[in-house]
């Protein structure tokens, strides 16, 4: 096993331009948030890909378990009454 100093992992989120949400683009290793922002800028925005960067410690992210995908998301699949197309509007009324 390596004896090199281990820099924590940070997840990087970038907003391509105002009006859009920040989106996960990858990760960087850095000693602290300030260094993570600098690394993220150099690694992920060399060609104007972003106007704003968020970094978050990877350990701070909680994620759903892929093995429980079914229990988690299937209940939404059979609720067609949540879709507008599930409702009939008379043709005479036109677009709604």
């Amino acid at each position, binding site marked *: *096993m390596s004896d*090199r100093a281990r820099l924590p992992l940070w997840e990087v989120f970038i907003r391509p331009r105002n009006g859009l949400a920040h989106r996960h683009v990858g990760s960087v290793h850095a000693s602290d948030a300030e260094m993570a922002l600098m690394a993220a800028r150099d690694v992920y925005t060399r060609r104007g890909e972003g106007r704003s960067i968020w970094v978050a410690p*990877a*350990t701070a992210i909680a*994620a759903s378990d892929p093995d429980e995908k079914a229990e988690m998301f299937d209940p939404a699949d059979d609720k067609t009454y949540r879709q507008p197309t599930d409702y009939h509007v008379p043709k005479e009324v036109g677009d709604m």
Partner: protein
Amino acid sequence: MYAQGLINASGDPNAAETTEQLARFQARIDAEEKIEARDWMPAAYRKTLIRQISQHAHSEIIGMQPEGNWVTRAPSLRRKASLLAKVQDEGGHGLYLYAAAETLGISREEMQDQLLSGAAKYSSIFNYPTLTWADIGAIGWLVDGAAIMNQIPLCRCSYGPYARAMVRVCKEESFHQRQGYEIMTTLAQGAPAQKAMAQDALNRWWTPSVMMFGPPDTDSVHSDQSMTWKIKRFTNDALRQRFVDATVPQAGYLGLTVPDPDCKWNDAAQHYDIGPLDWDDFWKVVKGGGPMNRQRIAARQKADDEGAWVREAALAYAAKRSVLMEAAE
């Protein structure tokens, strides 16, 4: 999601894999579903990807050296700025790829140790020296050109984090290849000595570039399984042929000759034929016998050693500051 602490939940290589699990996995692959970091995957799939992605990352990082060699001697400010940007891109590519490999449960530190100890390989092309400025043109044109041929299908690789990293890499490689070809064009249209320098670079880089696609399909150990898993989409020979077909006419435009007397258009096959390649030499270079293997690893080791205090200082500073901030709260 690249969070390191969460992965490998199902990645125990000793866990028995049932036929049913394997069949379900293959069905997902066949349906063109992407596999994500925390999904169940066969241990061999994980191992293959770690080997391939880390090798790819190492190639990007080692690839900074032959080109970095010419940054201070670039012939104009524009050439210097673009070469510097290209070398920086290679570093970036290495980092995207290390991050993608880390999602499979290996740490960047382990990968770096494997590179330095020689346990992990990198593309043999970077074990050749860059003797003249024309080599920078030839590398961009040929080496990055071959890399693009290889990498475009990888954007559709079945493993999501690798495929996404490759999309970014491919966008940036296009600049690399064009800047290389522009250097070659300028030299080829210049004084006779410049044109001779361009031809000499082509002579030295052609064969190693054609070999970048790896051993012929008949000898490729990993090919079949990788194709079934859709890590690879085309065989080594198919990609090599595509590269040759694209590149020979580009050499023709430059008025340069590909250094292969057997290279000619085959009208029946609608492809360029090429002569036999010396694969013994290829393996010799991969295994450490190339002209620059020792220097490449030594330079990497030096950079690693000399950067150690920076990493330690940054961590010490971060630890000290977090204590101060807690005290202030």
